[in-house]
C-alpha cells in the first residue's frame, strides 16, 4: 500500500499516543537509513509511518556519571560528544558522513547484523535503555533488550526513548573489521571495556557484532580472564574462548568460518590495544 500517512509527532507523549492509536502496524522510524531503502524498493509497504525525528529525543547530556542519549540523537552527535570515547569511535566507524547525519543511536539498536556497530559499543559499556509506553516506563540493561534476530523486548505499544551509558567505563577498545576500511558492513566488530585493579582484570565486558543474531557478549571469554593480568597468554585465552562461543553467520560479506576466525583475531587485537593504550598513558605520564 502506498503510504497513507506520515506522522511526525512533536513530543514523546504525542508519539506514544499515536503508537497506541495505530497499533503495531505503525512503522516507527527515526533516521530512516534502514527503513527507507526497504520502502523505496517496495520490500516494505507500510500504510502508516511515524518519524521520531522531531519528538524531542535528540539530546545527549551528561548527568552525573551517566551519559543520557536520546534515541533520536544522530550518530554525528555521538561522534561529537566527549563523554565516552568508545562511543565516538564506534560512531565514527559506522556508515558514511551523510548517513551519520541521519542515522540515530536508537535506530542503530534495531539494525540487524552485520549492522549495528554502535550497539556493540553500548553493550560493552553496559548501557541501559529506557522504554516508554502508555502505561509507564521501564529501564532494561541493553543485554536484556535483544531477544533474537530482529526481535527485542520492546512491547508493541512501547518506544525506545533513551539510552543511559555509565561514564566511568575503565579501559576500552573498539575495532570494526570489514572488507573495506570505511562505510562497509562488519566482518566482525569488537568492543571491550575492562576494569583492572592491582594489575588484574576485575571486570571485563567483551561485546561482539556480526557474530550472532544481535550484538552479543562473549561471556565465557570474559569469565576466562577476570582475575588474571592482561598478558599474552590471557589475551590468547580470551580470543580463543570468544571465537568458540560466538554464533556467526554467512552473508554476502563473509562466511561463518571466516567470521569466527576473525572474532579470535580481533578480540586479541582489541585487548592488545588496551595494553598499548596503557603503555602510551604511562609513556605520556613520564
Amino acid at each position, binding site marked *: 500500500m*502506498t503510504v497513507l500517512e506520515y506522522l511526525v509527532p512533536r513530543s514523546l507523549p504525542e508519539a506514544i499516543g499515536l503508537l497506541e492509536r495505530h497499533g503495531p502496524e505503525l512503522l516507527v522510524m527515526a533516521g530512516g537509513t534502514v527503513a527507507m531503502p526497504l520502502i523505496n*524498493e517496495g520490500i516494505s*509497504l507500510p500504510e502508516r509511518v511515524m518519524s521520531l525525528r522531531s519528538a524531542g529525543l535528540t539530546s545527549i547530556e551528561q548527568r552525573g556519571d551517566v551519559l543520557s542519549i536520546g534515541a533520536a540523537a544522530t550518530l554525528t552527535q555521538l561522534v561529537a560528544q566527549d563523554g565516552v570515547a568508545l562511543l565516538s569511535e564506534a560512531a565514527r566507524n559506522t556508515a558514511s558522513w551523510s548517513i551519520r547525519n541521519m542515522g540515530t543511536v536508537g535506530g542503530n539498536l534495531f539494525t540487524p547484523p552485520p549492522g549495528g556497530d554502535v550497539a556493540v559499543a553500548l553493550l560493552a559499556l553496559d548501557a541501559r535503555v529506557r522504554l516508554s509506553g502508555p502505561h509507564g516506563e521501564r529501564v532494561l540493561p541493553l543485554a536484556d533488550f535483544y531477544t533474537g534476530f530482529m526481535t527485542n523486548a520492546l512491547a508493541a505499544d512501547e518506544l525506545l526513548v533513551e539510552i543511559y551509558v555509565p561514564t566511568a567505563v575503565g579501559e576500552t577498545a573498539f575495532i570494526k573489521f570489514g572488507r573495506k576500511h570505511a562505510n562497509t558492513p562488519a566482518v566482525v566488530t569488537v568492543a571491550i571495556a575492562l576494569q583492572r585493579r592491582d594489575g588484574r582484570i576485575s571486570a571485563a565486558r567483551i561485546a561482539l557484532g556480526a557474530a550472532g543474531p544481535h550484538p552479543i557478549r562473549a561471556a565465557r571469554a570474559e569469565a576466562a580472564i577476570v582475575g588474571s593480568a592482561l598478558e599474552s597468554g590471557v589475551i590468547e585465552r580470551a580470543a580463543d574462548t570468544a571465537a568458540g562461543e560466538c554464533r556467526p553467520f554467512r552473508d554476502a560479506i563473509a562466511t561463518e568460518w571466516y567470521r569466527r576466525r576473525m572474532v579470535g583475531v580481533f578480540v586479541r587485537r582489541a585487548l592488545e590495544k588496551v595494553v598499548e593504550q596503557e603503555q602510551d598513558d604511562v609513556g605520556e605520564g613520564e
Partner: protein
Amino acid sequence: MSPALNVVGRSVPRSDGIGHVTGRTQFATDHSFPGMLHLKIVRSPVHHARIRRIDLSEAERVPGFVCALTHADVPHNVYTILGLIGVEPEEEFVLAEDRARYKGEPIAAIVAESEEAALDAVARVKLDLEELPAVFDVEEALKPGAPIVTHWGNNTFMYEGHPCRRVRFGDVEEAFARADHIVEGVYNTKPIEQAPIETTGCIAVPEANGRYTVYTNTQAVYFSLDNTSIILQIPGNRLHFVGGTVGGGFGGKVDVIVEPLATLAAMKTNRPVKYAYSRSEEMQVSSTRSAWRIYVKDGVMRDGRIIARKVTSYADSGAYSRQTPYALTKHAANASGPYAIPNVSIDAYCVYTNRVPSSAMRGFGITMASFALEVQMDKIAEVAGLDPWSIRFINAYRDGDIKPHRKVVEDATLIETMQAAAALVGQDLPAEFRAMTSARRSEGGA
C-alpha cells in the same frame, strides 16, 4: 612524416565537463513528463520453475494500477539480441511463458500511476509455480541428466555444429609428447556486476505523430531501436531513440531490456512510461560478466619456450546467452595470449545454467583469459627456472608471427611495453631483453 597535429594529442578539456560539474548534463531518466506512468516487473522468486498461473486480480485492485503486460501482449516475445548480426536461435523470452529459467526472470510487467503503486501491485501478484531442479555449475550443466535450461534441448550454445568455439593450430598432442615440462592450471572466476552508478533505464513517450520517442541510457541506440522494432513488430520509423549520455556502462547497458517493455506500455496506455532498474535489480537481475572456468595445459621446453597450449574454457552464460557467445569467440581468438606458440588447441564453451544471464562487460572475453594466462605464465616461469620477466620476453609475439587463428601479427609491442614497465619500476633486464624488439623476426627481431 605526418604533418604536425593541432588538436589531436592534446589534453583539451572535456566538452561535457561543465555540464557534469554543474549537474546540468541531462541523463535519460532526468527527463520527466506530465502523466508519466511507471513500470515495474513481477519476477520469478525461484531459479527454475514451471509457471502454472499468474493471478493479477489483487494487483489490479491497487489504487493507481493502470495495466499489466504478460507474454501474450508481446508481439515477438522470443528474441536474441545478437539476431541483428545473424546469431541464432531466438531464445530469450521478453516475458516468461510457461517456464522461468532464472531467479529474477521477468514474468509480468505492471504499469501504474506512481512507482509506489507499481511496486505495491507487483507485491500483490500471485504466482502459481512448480519449482524445477536447477543447475548452477558450468560442468554440471554439461553432464548427462542435468536439468536442461534452454528451450531447444541442450545446455551449450552451438557454433556451426560444434558445442564450443574451436581453434586448432599445429599439433598440441605431438608437442606435449616432446615437451620438457607440462604445466597445468585451472582458473575460476565468479560473476561480476558492471555496477554503473546510473541504473539501466528509459522513458518511452508517445508523440503527436504516432511515433514513440525513447529516452534511454543504452550504450547502443540503434541496437536498442532495432531490437525494440523486432520485439514489438513495428517499423523502426515509428521509433525515435535519444541517448548518448550514459552514467557508466562497462558493458552493462548493451542489452535491450527496458526499451521494448516501456515502449509497449506506452503504446498500450498512450502515455509516457518510465522503466528504470532499481539498484537491487541492477545488482541482482541485470546481466553480469560471466563466471569462467578455464583449464590451461602448456608444453614447455627447458629454455622456457612454450611449444604447445591447450585451453578449455567454460563461460557461465546463465539462462540466456545475450552477448556471451560472441565473448567466447573473442576469448578463443585470444586464449594463447600475446605469445608466439606454435601448437594451440582451444575449446571455448558458452554454457547455459539457471543463473542470471551474463552478457557484455569491459574486457569482454579477455579479462579472465588474461588473468588465467598471466598467472599460468608465472607458474611456467617457476617450472622452467626463470623469472617472470624472462618467460614473457622469451615467448613474446612479434610482428609477422602467425596467431593460432591464422592472422599475421601486425601491431605487436608487448616487448617494448614490458621494457617500459621495467624501466618504470627499476627492474634490471638482461642485455638480450633490453635489445629485443617486436620487429619481424626476419628483420632482425631476433
